[in-house]
């Protein structure tokens, strides 16, 4: 499919608005096992993205996502700035404007690897990767009802971080006490996947 400027705009705007609308929830999750700034940091970053929406939307999908990434790196702060910035920049670098599901999966695979390298982390350590990994697997397999399965996978994967013990990030300082709370980065990743799935179904 061709991702035109209207769809690019809808994708970026929907992701940004969903994250901003959930800033309070993300901060509460981060207060339980981190330093309590994830929501406010992500809100600041995505408000800066929305402020550039007009310019971003007309640049083509790849360049627009790179622009989102750069803005997140500079505006979010915390560890989530470079991590989400790297995710979007790597996606943008790999995505043409006319994109097949296979190309999208290839781009997400590269982006997930870039996030792993940036965070020196891997799947199973109670991070955003625990959502992005399963979402990538579903995207790779394709099939019917893809948006609804992506949405369900992301939500289930975020919930699956609750019993995990944190190995990376501030939550790892808590050791066993990080068990029993959803990872805030997993939750923010799930919000983004849900937003993309909604746009795919025309419900942005």
């Amino acid at each position, binding site marked *: 499919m061709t991702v035109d400027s209207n769809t690019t705009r809808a994708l970026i705007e929907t992701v940004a608005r969903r994250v901003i609308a959930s800033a309070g929830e993300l901060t509460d999750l981060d207060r339980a096992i981190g330093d309590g*700034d994830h929501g406010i*940091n992500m809100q*600041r970053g995505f408000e800066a993205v929305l402020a550039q929406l007009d310019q971003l939307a007309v640049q083509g999908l790849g360049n627009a996502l790179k622009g989102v990434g750069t803005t997140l790196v500079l505006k*979010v702060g*915390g*560890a989530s700035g*470079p*991590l989400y*910035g790297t995710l979007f920049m790597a996606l943008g670098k790999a995505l043409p404007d006319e994109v097949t599901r296979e190309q999208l999966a290839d781009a997400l695979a590269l982006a997930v690897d870039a996030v792993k390298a940036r965070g020196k982390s891997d799947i199973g350590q109670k991070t955003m990767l625990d959502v992005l990994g399963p979402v990538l697997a579903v995207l790779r397999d394709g099939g019917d009802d893809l948006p609804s399965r992506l949405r369900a996978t992301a939500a289930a994967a975020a919930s699956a971080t609750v019993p995990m013990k944190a190995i990376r990030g*501030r939550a790892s300082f808590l050791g066993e006490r990080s068990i029993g709370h959803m990872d805030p980065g997993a939750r923010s990743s799930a919000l983004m996947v849900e937003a993309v799935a909604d746009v795919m179904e025309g419900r942005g």
Partner: protein
Amino acid sequence: MSGNVGIVIVSHSPDVARGTADMVRQMVGSEVPLGWCGGDPGGGLGTNVEAILAAIQAAWSEQGVAVLVDLGGAETNSEMAIEMLPEIRRGRVVVCNAPIVEGAVMAATEAASGAPLDAVRRTAEELTPG
């Protein structure tokens, strides 16, 4: 002065960064180029890639720059900042795996002797157990 390795201090707290810089200055005066930053882009506790880039610029030395960080986000943001430097400078900036206050003071003391970047980093990292 530009002959010595520069030191950059990146803390989540501007007070910690400024205080650490004060301790470095007391040890080595102005013999070592020094930059510091602390706080997120909104002014709260956190770190900020733009401020880190500015601190690296302030402490720039042709001999290289050693960066001392506190908690995880400071390390991740410092690594991101280094990747955003012009290619010619990128390889001459290192993040030290060392405690921020002691590491900065020890690294600066070593840098003031004219030691190369590798030695400055090693001196700071000797403070890290294991």
